[in-house]
């Protein structure tokens, strides 16, 4: 990794590091380097690796560091610690089921309510922005899994993101993929979140039931409504104080 950290090539936009978090020496050396190229540290088994996030404290002082966390059982420990260290998080939900869905609900509540959270936790952060009217692009883009934008030349590329599935790279991958799902009769046709999600949760298994995932989006919608209510209450209160001046 030292070689990559010293690479000053303008084409190098970030370095994705997977499977090294346990290595004390790697991060001690990495902390001695500074640079513009950010690191994306990908956890493999978050429930086991979470405490190793402390190794990134010094590295973060020299360059931007983000943590990517797969939503596997126990992942919330890693989310909590990353947040407490001020590290931005990219949560990789896959097609969550059972206890992982429950944990995602907990993670969302943590993101929305806990004062400890200062850095973004994706995909919640962009979903909240999208619900507020921001142009975030689809969930494929937000989670950097859009094959038209993020090409991965790895041994096992299908493990983490789809190939282009025959979709022309010049086309909007998410829109075309969603169109195909709707044509095939998937539940996306009636889903209020389909323009943001763009069928993300229907890959790789198109028959995956989105019931639990929709609850996450509903919770985000409720939070947006709550913020809007609070803001308008504040406006009313302020107008009241102005007129009484």
């Amino acid at each position, binding site marked *: 990794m030292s070689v990559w950290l010293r690479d000053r090539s303008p084409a190098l936009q970030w370095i994705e590091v997977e499977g090294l978090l346990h290595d*004390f020496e790697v991060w*001690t050396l990495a*902390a*001695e*380097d*500074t640079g513009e190229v950010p690191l994306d540290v990908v956890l493999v088994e978050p429930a086991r690796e*979470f*405490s*190793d996030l*402390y190794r990134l*404290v*010094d590295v973060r*002082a*020299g360059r931007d560091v983000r943590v990517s966390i797969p939503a596997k059982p126990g992942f919330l*420990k890693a989310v*909590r*610690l990353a*947040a*407490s*260290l*001020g590290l931005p998080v990219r949560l990789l939900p896959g097609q969550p089921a059972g206890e992982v869905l429950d944990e995602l609900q907990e993670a969302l509540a943590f993101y929305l309510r*806990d*004062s*400890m959270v*200062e850095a973004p936790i994706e995909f919640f952060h962009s979903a909240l922005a999208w619900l507020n009217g921001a142009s975030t692009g689809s969930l494929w883009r937000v989670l950097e899994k859009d094959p038209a934008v993020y090409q991965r030349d790895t041994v096992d590329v299908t493990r983490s993101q789809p190939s282009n599935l025959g979709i022309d790279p010049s086309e909007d991958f998410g829109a075309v993929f969603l169109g195909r799902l709707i044509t095939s009769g998937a539940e996306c046709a009636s889903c209020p979140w389909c323009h943001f999600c763009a069928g993300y949760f229907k890959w790789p298994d198109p028959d995956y039931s989105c019931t639990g995932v929709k609850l996450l989006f509903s919770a985000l919608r409720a939070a947006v409504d709550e913020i809007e209510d609070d803001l308008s209450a504040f406006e009313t209160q*302020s107008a009241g*104080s*102005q007129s009484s*001046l």
Partner: protein
Amino acid sequence: MNRRVFSVILLPTSDCNVACEYCFERKDKHRLSTKLLPLLTSRLLDHLENEGIMECEVYWQGGEAMMMGPEWFVAAGRLMECAAAQRGRHFIHYLQTNLISYSESWNEVLRTMFQGSLGTSMDFPNDHRKLFNGSAEAYTRLWTRKLRAAQAAGIKVGVIAVLHQGSLEAGPEKFYQYFTEELGLTDFQVNTPFPGGPAGEVEGAFQLETSELAAFLASLFDIWVERGFEAGVSLGPFDALIDHFTGRPARLPCIWKENCSNQFISIDSKGTVAQCDCWVTSYPESFFGNIFREPDLTRMLRTSPARRQFVERPRHLVEHEDCLSCRYLSICHGGCPVRTYTALGTMMAKDPYCEVYKAVFGRAEAHGRTISRRNVDRSRLRTMALDET
């Protein structure tokens, strides 16, 4: 540019001119020689280069640092700054002293080397700080006279107060009045005691009951917010906590850092390197090495088994204590290793003052919220006033 801050708590002597009952340090008349200071400086600068750090804060403490005399500091400051400048680095110096040796002969070096400021210590009531063969009252009288003289000379003085049972009995109101009204201070901080070093047995008798201590600190916090916060009185660590909870950059005290091992070391007059002054003066089993005998400080810090314990402590705590589920983890990380070690004989546990810290954090959070709302209201009123004009 590496944004890391590196600090060195440098003890030019562990000799002292007073006899405080709860001092955790082992006294030693040895003094840092100006002949060895270039070597120490050079090794510090090597380390800064290795770590890509441009600036190093040097906290001069003791023992009693002023026992070295002002001329010694003039020479030391000049030597260090010259060596640092040659390597494109910079030292910032701070002085912590009991003030007992202060005289006007210190003013010049205080102004040139220490930005016209110093840190000192006093408790309220002062029951345990004593002169050799003298009473606590005599100490207080002498210290107060020296404080007045330093203030009159335009030296900015910050005071650290260690809480003890007498403070809790006096109550936060009298405590606050003493420092702000009687002494006229605008910058002081409260520290929690710990039974370390040779004073352990004595100080063990001064262990404070946590709920009583928490209540004291919470009330003191309220008093400061009500009277001191907007009047420009800085009371640590409350001021840093308010910064944190109002969204401003906060420099929290070392006890609440993600990992104090990343932030500083302490070096005594013989070159012993340890985590902080508490460790270097009291616990030989935790020494990292000797800066005069080992040519590479970076390597010493990287390979020291004693230091590894400090580095690994926060990891251990989130795995084995309840810290991960604590809503204040981001501003505490399990607290202070030395407070833990002195109380429990191991640093691999959370700080025994956990409940006290939680009470203080809760208070800070509530006050922070109120202050933020008030700031928003004021900002809107200002905007409305501008609109009207």
